[in-house]
């Protein structure tokens, strides 16, 4: 299997935060979704991949190239959207085209203008006059216009209204249809990831909590709602996390089929990535 991105044993220590042993691989043609709450280490991992910070430990390869040794080779193949980092806001989309065609060898001016047109962005207006959503669209257009093979996107749909979000998600779907193109996508909007991600990595306080295919997560995990009496009858090891509210217990379970066999009368609800995130972070572990 060919990998667009391989991360092994990634570690980075700050005074108040530590990224510990992050490891994952992104096969070409796939989308990997990165979830976790604010400050969990998603952006730090992305910065490490983009060589914006020095690693304390670990190795990162992009299309087989070690980023410490062959950084520049890989950068031609990457399109990037970062949270709150872009061109100075006095420049215009037209300026960005003028600049980028001398930065990327494969910069496609026609494609860039096509995106600008599709997104209804003004060509000669300074970035500072654009709305947050329009700026995000411009960042995405810029990231896509040199025919990258790997997109690294940190909160690419933040600030977009539902219609614009859907347009952008469709754009990512189209991108992935092209041969050997892959996406690493970090987002708080977990519903977006449910629609397009093949793999999900859940990171919390600098540590990986979960790493599975999105389908497996949504099929295997479930939520069981029950009263206290039933809760006590369920084996401790079958409860990944639980939450107690006023009238009932909600239990996060890991293997729906096995659970149903063991407790035939139970009703298992489907789970969303948001539920999973909330349970993993706010749920209790039975002692």
């Amino acid at each position, binding site marked *: 299997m060919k990998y667009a991105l391989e991360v092994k044993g990634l570690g980075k220590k700050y005074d108040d935060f530590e990224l510990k042993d992050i490891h994952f691989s992104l096969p070409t043609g796939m989308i990997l979704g990165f979830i976790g709450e604010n400050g969990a280490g998603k952006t730090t991992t992305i*910065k490490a991949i983009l060589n914006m910070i020095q690693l304390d430990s670990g190795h990162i390869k992009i299309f087989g190239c070690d980023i410490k040794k062959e950084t520049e080779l890989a950068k031609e193949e990457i399109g990037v959207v970062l949270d709150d980092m*872009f*061109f*100075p806001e006095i420049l215009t989309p037209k300026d960005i085209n003028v600049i980028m065609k*001398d930065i990327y060898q494969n910069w496609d001016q026609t494609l860039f203008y096509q995106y600008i047109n599709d997104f209804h962005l003004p060509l000669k207006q300074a970035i500072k006059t654009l709305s947050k959503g329009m700026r995000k669209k411009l960042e995405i257009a810029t990231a896509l216009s040199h025919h990258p093979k790997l997109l690294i996107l940190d909160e690419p749909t933040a600030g977009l209204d539902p219609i614009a979000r859907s347009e952008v998600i469709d754009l990512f779907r189209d991108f992935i249809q092209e041969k050997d193109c892959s996406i690493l996508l970090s987002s708080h909007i977990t519903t977006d990831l449910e629609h397009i991600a093949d793999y999900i990595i859940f990171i919390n306080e600098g540590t990986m909590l979960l790493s599975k295919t999105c389908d497996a997560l949504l099929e295997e995990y479930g939520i069981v709602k029950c009263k206290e009496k039933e809760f006590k009858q369920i084996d401790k090891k079958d409860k990944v996390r639980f939450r107690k509210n006023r009238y009932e217990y909600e239990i996060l379970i890991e293997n729906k089929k096995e659970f149903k066999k063991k407790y035939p009368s139970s009703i298992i609800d489907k789970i969303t990535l948001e539920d999973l995130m909330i349970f993993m972070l706010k749920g209790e572990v039975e002692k």
Partner: protein
Amino acid sequence: MKGFIKKDILMMRSNLKILLVLFVLYIVMDFQGNSSLSFFLPVCSVVSMLSTFSYDDYNHWTSYAVTLPNGRRNVVKSKYITTFILLFLMSLCVGVFSSIIYVTKHYAINFSFIFENLFGSIVGALFVLDFMYPMIFKMGIEKARIAIFVGVFSIIILGGILIKYVDVSALSFLFSFFHGYGGILIFIIMMIFLSFLSYQISMLFYRKKEF
């Protein structure tokens, strides 16, 4: 790297109006004999270049630029090359307009005077920028501004102390040493060396910088 230089030049468009107003002001002052037009060059080149750093920092361009091909190297290199381009263009404008002022006043054009003034201005601007760039690349424009202010203030105080307690006339041999075309050549070599040193230090800082 061309793209990075273009970016800085395109950003300077926003300062163009104010630069033109200042240029006209300096022309009027020069015409009245109150100042030399060449003083426009160090003031405006330093202000223009620093404003590009401010815009870069404000929108975190430098972090974004690191993700672009050869980003780290080109961010530093392009600032130095843009500085040289800017100084060249400004020198050209100042030179032409200084000559026009001579003609308008019905004087014979004193090319050597214009050249010496321009040369002094370029040396002054380059000296300031070569001194500032490594600090900006290390600390960012905001912190570097404070460091530069402290540095300039210290130099003024030290200068004051020097004038008060040391016989400055004894140092006049230094000025005679730099006189004439030989002196200009020495200055050119010194400025090339200083710019090279400044660039190397900036690169050293920027190569290790985390974003």
